[in-house]
Structure formats: structure tokens, C-alpha cells
């Protein structure tokens, strides 16, 4: 009976073989760029018949783990891999390829508040630390004159999974609040002082949408697509900036000029009069060596496409295209893939 079932199993596997020859790549990682990656990979697949790129957005932590364990062909993350993480990769080197830039915005659910809210970094840090517990707190009111806040507890919402978005958010908070830096720090997964947890960006957005008097943080597009209110944030120059393509591009201007060779850089709290302070690059994590040369070829084609045609589609989804200097530098790195 067991041999029979094994034979059937073999038939099953054989039956899926025809699909195996259609080139497939498996990737996983950040939810931050998920909307544009899904759009890109779909279009790339249509333009290159037979190519299917399956992208599972399970968080930047998932992307890093995937390339470390070798369970995916490439990964994606909004936080560059640390030296420690890079050293843990058994199969060799991982190359970072920035693909777009985007913004992490504070989203909130406040019935009756129709105006756009303004937040400064320290206020955000204190809300997430718990030192500012109610919406009616004077410090929030001070930055938002004329807005009537309910006297309700603030429901903080954060990520449960290892998230690059979390890293960008906590990186910014660490830079503007020494209190946050010492108590919590910046990473993909932190020990949150308070709040409810949602899985992936979709989960956080969903929770904020369903929970009155809540505040969370997600990539800009999630807020726009779900018509959730998001606030403007005070940047290092003192301006309250609402996230958009222009302000994110300005945030990356400095990094574009001085991009390190491995492309690992943080652009939170960047200088610039109208720079959005919680901006970030997001990277594809590509192994430098592929055991299957056909896969290496496809990945290279994909990267060329992303850096050329892909960039034209960013703005429609409110992501900022890469600065030209960065694109040129990346094109050279593609040759390093074998």
C-alpha cells in the first residue's frame, strides 16, 4: 500500500513538472513595497512570457531569513542587512539593490477629526512610549491648534512580525528622541512598550481601520489606498511635511550623492527644507551566486527592467523613483551576479 502511495506521489510530482519548466522565481520579504513589486512582477511576467515571479510579502524579516536559509531565490527588505546577518548567510554574498524610495506615515483613526494632523518626532516617540496616553494631551494639541480631540486613550498599533517598516519608524524615533533610543532602540523587531500588534502592513492598516482612536505606521500607499488619514511629520529643518513623491526624493538627495558601494544607507531625518523625515530606500536582496545559471539570467533581466521600465511606474503608486546616480551605480553591480 505504501509503494502504491509512493507511486502516486511520484505521479503527482511528475504531473507538476510541466509547470516547473516555465521559469519561476520565488521571493519573499518586505510588505512596504509589496504593491509595486506585485505590479512590477506581473508586468514583467507578461512582457517575458512564461516568467512567474511569486512574491510573498511576509515582512522584511522573512526576506532576510529566506535568503539566509536559501529557501527563496531572492528577498526584499526595507532595512539593509546588518554585518551580523550577512555573515550568517551560508551560501555566500548577498548584494543589495535599492529599487524605490517610499515614506512611512503615521496613520490614525479619529472620528470627527477631518483636518490633517501634525506630529513632531518627540511627540510620536512619546505616544508610542506611552508617556502621552490620551488624544487630548496638551502636547498634541499644541502642534494642532484648532483641532478638537476626543478625551480618549490612544490605541497604539504596531507590527508583530520582523518588519523593515518598523526599522525605519524606530530608526527615526531613535534619532529624534533619546528616550526612545535608550528604552527601545531601532530594529525590525523591538520590544514595544505598549500597543496592539498586527501582522504585516496589511494587518496594521486593518487594525487601525477597525479600531477607533488608534494610531499606527505604514507605507504611504496603504494609507492612500484605504483612505485612512495620515499626518504630516516635522523634519530636521522644522517644517511639517506631508509625505509625497517630491518630499521623499528630497530626503534621498544627500544619499544619492554619497551612496556607499554596498548601497546600505539610512535616509531618515534627512536634511532638506521639505524633506520627508521618515523616508527610506527599499532593497532587493540578491545572492551573488546562483546555482542555476538560468535563474541568474532571469534575475539580471529583472533587475535591468526594474531599473529602467520599472522606475517609470513608481509615481503612480506614490513611490519615488531612484535618483539617476544610484541607478547608474546599480547597473554596474548587476554584473557581479553569477
Amino acid at each position, binding site marked *: *500500500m*505504501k509503494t*502504491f*502511495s509512493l507511486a*502516486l*506521489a511520484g505521479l*503527482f*510530482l511528475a504531473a*507538476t513538472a510541466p*509547470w*516547473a519548466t516555465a521559469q*519561476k522565481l*520565488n521571493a*519573499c520579504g518586505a510588505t512596504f513595497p*509589496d*504593491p509595486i513589486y*506585485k*505590479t512590477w512582477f*506581473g508586468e514583467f511576467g507578461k512582457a517575458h512570457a512564461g516568467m*512567474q515571479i*511569486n*512574491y*510573498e510579502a*511576509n515582512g522584511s524579516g522573512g526576506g532576510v531569513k529566506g535568503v539566509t*536559509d*536559501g*529557501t*527563496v531565490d531572492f528577498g526584499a527588505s526595507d532595512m539593509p542587512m546588518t554585518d551580523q546577518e550577512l555573515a550568517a548567510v551560508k551560501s555566500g554574498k548577498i548584494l543589495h539593490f535599492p529599487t524605490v524610495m517610499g515614506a512611512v506615515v503615521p496613520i490614525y483613526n479619529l472620528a470627527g477629526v477631518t483636518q490633517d494632523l501634525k506630529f513632531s518626532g518627540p511627540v510620536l516617540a512619546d505616544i508610542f512610549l506611552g508617556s502621552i496616553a490620551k488624544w487630548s494631551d496638551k502636547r498634541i494639541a499644541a502642534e494642532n491648534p484648532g483641532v478638537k480631540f476626543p478625551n480618549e486613550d490612544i490605541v497604539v498599533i504596531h507590527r508583530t512580525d520582523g518588519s523593515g517598516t518598523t526599522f525605519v519608524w524606530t530608526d527615526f524615533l531613535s534619532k529624534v528622541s533619546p528616550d526612545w533610543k535608550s528604552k527601545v532602540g531601532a530594529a525590525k523587531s523591538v520590544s514595544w512598550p505598549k500597543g496592539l500588534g*498586527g*501582522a504585516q502592513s*496589511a*494587518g496594521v*492598516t*486593518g*487594525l*487601525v*481601520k477597525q479600531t477607533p482612536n488608534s494610531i499606527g505606521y505604514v507605507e504611504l500607499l*496603504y494609507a492612500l*489606498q*484605504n483612505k*485612512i488619514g495620515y499626518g504630516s511629520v516635522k523634519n530636521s529643518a522644522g517644517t511639517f511635511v506631508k509625505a509625497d513623491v517630491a518630499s521623499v526624493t528630497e530626503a534621498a538627495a544627500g544619499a544619492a550623492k554619497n551612496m556607499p558601494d554596498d548601497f546600505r544607507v539610512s535616509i531618515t531625518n534627512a536634511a532638506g527644507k521639505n524633506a520627508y523625515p521618515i523616508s527610506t530606500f527599499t532593497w532587493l536582496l540578491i545572492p551573488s551566486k546562483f546555482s542555476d545559471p538560468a535563474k541568474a539570467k532571469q534575475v539580471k533581466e529583472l533587475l535591468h527592467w526594474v531599473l529602467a521600465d520599472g522606475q517609470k511606474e513608481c509615481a503612480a503608486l506614490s513611490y519615488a523613483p531612484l535618483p539617476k546616480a544610484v541607478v547608474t551605480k546599480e547597473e554596474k553591480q548587476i554584473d557581479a551576479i553569477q
Partner: protein
Amino acid sequence: MNRLALRRRLVNSVMLSLTGVCTAVTISVLFVILGCLIYNGAHSLNWNFFTKLPLPPGQEGGGLANAIVGSIEIVGMAGLIGIPIGFLAGVYLAEYEDKRFAALVRYVADLLNGVPSIVVGILAWTLVVLPMRTQSGLAGSIALSVMLIPIVTRQTEQFLREVPLALREAALALGASKWKMIATVAVPAGSKGILTGMILGMARIAGESAPLLFTALNNQYWGGLREPTASLPVMIYKLAIAPYEDWNRQAWAAGLVLITLVLMANIAARLILARGVSVPRG
């Protein structure tokens, strides 16, 4: 005396009515669940839902065809692995009395029955995903089969034991060897119950989501046993917690499909088992 008697009668009526209330409430929960699923999900069960692949967030009109097929593949494979193993192990427990070894196997079967499904997922991750260097439908199937085997084993054993001794002895007296007796007399006699056990086991694993979360993962396209595969229970989870109303709508529809399948399998199993589940009173 009268006041005491009255009080006792009052207590009697009240408490007994309360038990009826408890029953009514419990029964009504099932209908509330079904009602919610039908109310929220029925209108989303259209052609698109069953035949299209999922679309990126914000685009309407996608479906869950890959999740339905993926579930069928994963559960089917789990059945192919788990049912033979469970069945034969059940035959062993019922027909061969090795005293201590059989008791050990029985104990272990009950043990495995109670393992939390997420822990089974960890096992499949370590045993299948890491060596294969990819998430896959097969890893999900193996996780589910670990949950299926003890169910099938115990059910097979239970219903084989209920086959009357006289029937077996008649076959043996007529000269049949033991294995022939089992194969041609005992198993067919107990087949109703054994089949029931298999159907119930399959229905149980078809609804499991936790073991598939990081073994089969997910896929926007058609998956397969060698690659990440979408499945109905995992998709329900992801669609339910998402903010997009289109996705939530699909979650309801998927939930309706899943519960229909599971309930139909359960009802069919009980109907096959012509004898009821009652224990005679007294």
C-alpha cells in the same frame, strides 16, 4: 413542608429550564456562524472567485482559484501519505495483541492527536522545508499527514474492534489465514466506520491553517507540491486581517466554501455510519 416542597419544585423547574437554555444557545451558535457566512459571503461566490487568480491590492475582480486547487493538492497528498499509514497502524492495534507494544502505540497515537497544530508546523519546517530549501506544498502535506495519521489509526482500530468475534472465528475456522481473514472479513465488516474515520480526518486537516503558514506559505500563481502553494485556510487568514474591503469580501466567500466542504464531509460521514452515536441509557 409545603414551602420546602414548593421551593424544591421551583428550583427543579428553573434549573432544568436553564439546561435547556444552555443547549439552545449552543445550537444557535452553529446557525449564527452559518448565517453570518452565508449573509456576508454568498454574494461573492461568482465565477471569478472560482476561476481567477488573486490580483494585487486595489484591483478588483480577483479570485481564489489557486487557493482552492492548492488546498485540494495539499490535502490530497496528505491523504495519500496519511491514510495508508493510519489504516495499517489501526489494523495492527486491533488485530495483533502485542500487549505492551500495542499499548505504547495506542498511547502515542493519542499523544499525537493532541499535538498543537503549530508545533507540527515547526516539525515539517525542520524536516522538509530546510532540506528542500524551499517552502512547498509537500511540506504542508507532510505536516497535515502527521495530524491525520493518529485520527485514522484510532478510528480504524475502534471500528475493527467492533466487528464481532464470531465473524472472525468463522473465517479462521474455514481455513483462512489471519491476514486473509482481516482483509476479506474484518475490514469489509468494519468498512463503514473506517471510511467514516478517514473522511472525518480529511475534513479536519482541510481546515487547518497553522501548519501551513510557514510550510506551504503562499503563492499568487498556481503552486504545486514542490513550491510554495496557496491554500484556502491560509488565504482566509490573510484576507481577513487585511484592510481592503475587496479582500475581506473574498475572505467571507472562502470561509463559506470551506465550511460547506467541512460540514458536508462531516454529515456524509455520519450518514454512512448508519448506527447512531448514542449510548443506551441506564
